[in-house]
């Protein structure tokens, strides 16, 4: 149970509805992070992540390849245990742009249909920014998001200010701010779920301020300063007495009669027993990959067929395009880059979404350009200029010299959907229960390479303005490779929309093909934007919680 399960449980139980939460992993609390500042255990051996010996995914770049299992972690990390990915995230809490929700219509309107390349499966979300705004607001108030509330011309309007002020603007951030303003851009503090000050949320939950200890992403927060379902929505739900959390309970199938679900089957992983849990409403709130897999393994909903384009389960898998960056080396200055917080950073959106003219560009959408001060830890950060040997005396000397002398301006680019990027069941590989693994077919496209090159150059201009001794611009995008870590912003597979032919769920996240099943999470994104996904996942969870309450009262399709 992560953000989705926690939010929906909190909202439903507050309304007096009985909820059973099935969590395949263990229970977790802030006390478990006593020895949290351990880079090896958490960042390199993936303490908080799912045990891949039991279940993983398979991957291929294209249909001409044989998919093979991801045997150990690399490109993205799957959360496990109470809190899910909401325990190990960084806390960057961006809203998507108004453009994102109407990307197809707005693209056609501004540039004409011909602008969308052959094979790109761009589609609107079936909800507008103005419609989703109150749910964003709700999530931000509950999580206590810290940010700058002043109107930003690059972003959608806010109905309320952020509940807490922005994080500390460190010297590194100031340097980025000055440089990007000088170039005419509109930098702002990244909205942060690492609290800038002590905060009591509307549910009465109090949490302490962030200590900038530098151990966020892949780590839990021992202070509870990072918004995590375990310190926010799950206790709210538990306080009602209406939530029963069952840990070590791995759901393997949704029971249904073809039209409605009757409950789920889960394995009690302590005893090995298979248990049937009946339900009036079933909510799928696991990580997006597992949402799609559960539906496919349960034969609920029509699987996406890439050849005919029909069917929806598995459609529009997307990721994040973040290879473009500019690295600045400072021979004469040192910085405290080991200090930080997961969501401590500044960003500008002048080249994100459709905030700039794409008429003469060979790509759509864009990327946020940002500097982050997340805390550079020593195993994973040993920067050296290109051409430095990768081991030995020279390497040691150089990496020690630059250990505290490197700043990076990074880009986080949108990933748009293609007909041939999708999820289905693997024909060969199985999990420990004998159920097929999910297969990912995905690669980067020319769109992504063009985007990377353009955005990396912009990042480079900012970096040069920040006064380093020399700059290296990384503007090449290799084929997608599952080995190096890139991002855990995987999206799609059970997407939302207004048309049952091209979407699996409606704007309440209610399945078109099973009215009492709600599939919630980044699985619902028809494409991925140039932002972190959690704010949108949180907003959709509040929207779904409202829909479920409506459904329990009136029944039937809500849209």
């Amino acid at each position, binding site marked *: 149970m992560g953000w989705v399960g926690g939010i929906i449980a909190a909202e439903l139980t507050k309304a007096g509805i009985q909820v059973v939460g099935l969590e395949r992993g263990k229970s977790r609390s802030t006390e478990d992070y006593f*020895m949290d*500042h*351990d*880079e*090896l255990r958490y960042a*390199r*051996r*993936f303490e908080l992540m799912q*045990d*891949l*010996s039991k*279940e993983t995914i398979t*991957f*291929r*770049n294209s249909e001409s*390849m*044989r998919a*093979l*299992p*991801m*045997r*150990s972690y*690399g490109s993205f990390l799957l959360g496990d245990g109470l809190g899910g990915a909401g325990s190990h995230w960084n806390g960057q809490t961006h809203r998507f742009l108004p453009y994102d929700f109407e990307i197809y219509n707005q693209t056609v309107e501004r540039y004409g249909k011909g602008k969308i390349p052959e094979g790109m499966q761009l589609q609107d979300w079936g909800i507008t920014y103005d419609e989703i705004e109150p749910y964003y607001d709700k999530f931000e108030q509950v999580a206590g998001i810290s940010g700058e509330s002043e109107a930003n011309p690059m972003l959608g309007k806010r109905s309320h200010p952020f509940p807490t002020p922005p994080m*500390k*603007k*460190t*010297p590194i951030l100031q340097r980025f701010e000055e440089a990007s303003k000088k170039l005419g851009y509109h930098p702002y503090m990244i909205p942060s779920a690492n609290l800038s000050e002590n905060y009591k949320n509307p549910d009465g939950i109090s949490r302490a*301020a*962030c*200590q*900038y*200890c*530098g151990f966020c992403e892949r780590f839990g927060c021992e202070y509870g300063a990072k918004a995590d379902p375990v310190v926010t929505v799950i206790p709210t739900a538990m306080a009602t007495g209406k939530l029963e959390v069952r840990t070590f309970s791995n759901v393997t199938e949704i029971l249904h009669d073809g039209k409605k679900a009757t409950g789920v089957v889960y394995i009690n992983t302590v005893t090995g027993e298979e248990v049937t849990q009946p339900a009036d409403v079933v909510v799928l709130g696991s990580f997006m990959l597992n949402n799609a897999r559960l539906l496919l393994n349960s034969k609920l909903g029509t699987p996406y067929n890439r050849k005919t384009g029909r069917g929806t389960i598995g459609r529009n898998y997307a990721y994040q395009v973040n290879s473009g960056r500019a690295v600045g080396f400072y021979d004469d*200055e*040192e*910085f*405290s880059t*080991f*200090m*930080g917080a997961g969501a401590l950073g500044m960003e500008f959106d002048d080249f994100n979404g459709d905030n700039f003219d794409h008429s003469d560009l060979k790509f759509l959408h864009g990327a946020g350009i940002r500097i982050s001060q997340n805390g550079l*830890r*020593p*195993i994973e950060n*040993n920067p050296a200029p290109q051409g430095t040997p*990768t*081991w*030995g*005396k020279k390497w*040691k*000397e150089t990496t*020690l010299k630059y250990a*505290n002398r490197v700043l990076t301006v990074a880009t986080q680019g949108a990933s748009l959907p293609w007909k041939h990027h999708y999820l289905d069941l693997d024909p*060969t*590989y*199985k999990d420990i229960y004998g159920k097929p693994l999910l297969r990912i077919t995905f690669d980067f496209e020319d769109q992504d390479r063009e985007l990377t090159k353009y955005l990396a150059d912009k990042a480079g201009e900012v970096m040069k303005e920040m006064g380093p001794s020399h700059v290296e611009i990384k503007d090449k995008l290799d*084929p*997608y*490779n*599952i*080995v190096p870590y890139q991002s855990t912003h995987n999206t799609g597979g059970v997407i939302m929309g207004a048309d049952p032919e091209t979407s699996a769920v409606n704007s309440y996240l209610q399945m078109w093909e099973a009215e009492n099943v709600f599939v919630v999470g980044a699985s619902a994104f028809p494409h991925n934007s140039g932002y972190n996904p959690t704010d949108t996942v949180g907003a959709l969870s509040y929207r779904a919680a409202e829909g479920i309450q409506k459904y329990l009262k009136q029944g039937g399709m809500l849209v």
Partner: protein
Amino acid sequence: MPGLKLGKNSKPARSEQPDESRRNFLKASGMTLGGLIVGSVFGGVLTDNLEKNNSPAPASKPEASLQDALMFFNQEQFKMTEAAVERIYPEDENGPGAKALGVAFFIDHQLAGPWGYNARDYMMGPFVQAQATQGEQSRLKRNEMFTLGLEGLKSYCQQKYKKVFTELEAQQQDEVLTAMEKGDKFPMRGVTSSSFFKMLRSLTIEGVYADPLYGGNRNMNGWKMRKFPGNQMSYAQQITKEGLVQMKPKSLQAHMSE
């Protein structure tokens, strides 16, 4: 232990341009105070230099840590690993190398544990030759690969130099490692020499910089060389300061004694 120049209570201060001599480093990091008998390091270059610099030699030979024993390697494997990681991260004017930092013990312990046995990795078949984008697909466990890698290293040296790796000159050892990294006519069973080298390099960096609780990064000297303060509870007061703030490092052990 004599602290870094900045003294107690982690008092923040502006960084000075670092040009510490090794002697200063060794003094500052308290390296002579024990817990450092790693293989033959105690009689090695570091101590020689300390003595030349008239640093006070320990009155009697300090006892080795009782934890300095092996869980996985045999003696030959341990020595080969120790010599190889020292070439990857050598002792120099900045401070100790991988050998003195205990990296070979770190690797031994990692290979004996859940990571070495791929306990949390997907290990079901079929095992099929992968494309470069699909990741490792070996049926072997990491510790089996490591054993076979060392076997390959041994026979390569035997064939080319008629010697064992530990007897080669530093420059020859570098040649061997370079060939291994390139996969240049470097036969190994069950693992390519370049992926074995990659594993060796990655383990070396982990052993140098992981918390000392795992057996490497002795006395936090890996951290001290790069001014990384380790496990600190808060930087809330320091993070708005310009430049590099230096602090006396703490390991996770600090939590046990607090």
